[in-house]
């Protein structure tokens, strides 16, 4: 019981990180109907930017943890957003209206480019980071097993909630959000009605990338180790989360993230750690085959 509760806590923490990444996939898919394959790598770059910022701040003597983390978060989100914008501008925008596979191939190319860019510029070694927020709350003890809710997990949950709250406000209450939702409904019509669709799409990538960078920072803090390859696996899992929740649906992305996090954690805890990625990938295939609209997705009628 205690063991299961601990897994539940761990699973939710992991799921929130996936949810943050999944929002970026689902937003882009909702608007331009493409899988932004490079999104997982933006997450990875966000993690590296966080590592660089934390080390840089430390060398300037800024060691107060809350201040350092806040500065890092802003820095990583800002630069990652710049990456997101550039990727869209360079690799996707010129391809609008090109043939069906072109943007997808371009996105795969972008993903390979980013991974190897980081490998070349930052090296292939795993980068460790000593835990910044140690300790936690002992919830209860049962048969020698302690259920621990670490401060880190609380911090991750709080950060995610705040980010998602800001994001929800952005989408539902601002002119930008209105433009985004209009583009999601009908891109061509929105353009006819005077919405600058290029700008709206660009900003969608910016927001998605910023959220992914926050996820990158949280991942770095939670696991304490990153390398250039983390974006690939995390990207596929977050995409699975987006599909499971119903691609195009923002609450679905968070729900899907939580489910994937929980499934992965419980699978590792009770079955086998080696096959945890197989579990996630299988869920992706099963969802797409049997429930292609996901849990909260809309049913699309094929236009003939």
């Amino acid at each position, binding site marked *: 019981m205690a063991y299961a509760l601990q897994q539940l806590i761990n699973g939710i923490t992991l799921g929130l990180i996936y949810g943050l990444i999944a929002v970026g996939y689902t937003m882009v898919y909702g608007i331009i109907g493409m899988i932004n394959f490079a999104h997982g790598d933006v997450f990875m770059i966000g993690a590296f930017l966080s590592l660089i910022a934390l080390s840089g701040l430390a060398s300037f003597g800024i060691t107060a943890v809350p201040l350092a983390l806040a500065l890092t978060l802003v820095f990583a989100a800002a630069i990652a957003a710049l990456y997101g914008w550039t990727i869209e501008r360079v690799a996707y925008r010129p391809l609008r209206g090109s043939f069906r596979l072109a943007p997808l191939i371009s996105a795969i190319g972008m993903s390979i480019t980013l991974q190897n860019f980081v490998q070349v510029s930052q090296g292939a070694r795993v980068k460790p980071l000593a835990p910044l927020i140690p300790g936690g709350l002992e919830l209860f003890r049962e048969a020698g097993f302690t259920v621990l809710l670490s401060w880190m997990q609380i911090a991750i949950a709080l950060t995610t909630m705040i980010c998602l709250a800001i994001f929800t406000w952005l989408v539902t209450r601002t002119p930008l959000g209105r433009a985004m939702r209009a583009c999601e409904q009908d891109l061509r019509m929105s353009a006819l009605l005077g919405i600058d669709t290029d700008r709206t799409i660009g900003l969608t990538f910016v927001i998605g990338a910023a959220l992914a960078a926050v996820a990158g920072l949280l991942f770095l803090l939670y696991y304490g180790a990153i390398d250039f390859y983390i974006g690939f696996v995390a990207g596929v899992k977050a995409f699975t989360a987006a599909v499971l929740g119903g691609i195009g649906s923002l609450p679905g992305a968070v729900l899907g993230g939580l489910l994937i996090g929980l499934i992965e954690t419980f699978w590792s805890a009770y079955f086998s750690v080696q096959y945890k990625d197989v579990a996630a990938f299988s869920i992706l295939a099963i969802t797409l085959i049997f429930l292609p609209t996901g849990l909260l997705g809309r*049913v699309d*009628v*094929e236009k*003939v």
Partner: protein
Amino acid sequence: MNPPAPAPLLEVVDLTMRFGGLKAIDQLSFVARRGEITAVIGPNGAGKTTAFNCITGFYRPSSGALRLTHADGRAFQLERLPGHRIARRAGVARTFQNIRLFAGMTVLENLLVAQHAPLMAATGFGVLGVLGLGGYAAAERRAIAKARAWLERIDLMARADAPAGALPYGAQRRLEIARAMCTDPVLLCLDEPAAGLNPRESEELNTLLLRIRDDGCSLLLIEHDMGVVMRISDHIIVLDHGRKISDGTPAEVRADPHVIAAYLGEGDEGIEQETESVA
């Protein structure tokens, strides 16, 4: 009315199609008879294309029956067949409102793809064909001969090796019809075949369609161009808001007050708006 009515080919019984809470088609029943040109007309959003998509297997109807009877007595329940079977087994071919040719392939290739099933069988499902065995060469000659015959008929012989996407619009329409006919259908469904044609092309189309009918293939068409509909149809069904409001010969339909009302927009405004979004 002609006293000995031809045998029914397609019987649509209580066809209903719902999208979410919206009824695009509501309890539609009609009969298309063998050897006739049956036209389905109606204002925008009346549910014509939806009905078409149900008959040709692109949508699965929410309820109702679609029964197709061949001349030899074989009957098919179209609502239960997968899409490709409807074309191949039941012999229902179709064209599309926004022409769907294989634009990068040549005119001839388009017509050969339509004869895929017999050709594929002749290649021993690929294996013998690769090795150059079996009766494939003969089958291919027959397929090319059929394609040639259609090219003559639609006057595209000279463009046989040109990419289909390079043809002028009217020629693309004709090619799409020829391609559908290459599947040897008993019922050819045409979704607005005259749309975008100039008067001369429209006249050529009439001739082509009448000839197809006289060669033994029945036709079902959706059309906006009343000139075409009134001149060539044997039988007209009028839809409005997903329901049938009239059914009869061109002369009968033209005189029907319901039809006049629907086309002049004297219908219930509220319902009209609701169905508008279902194209």
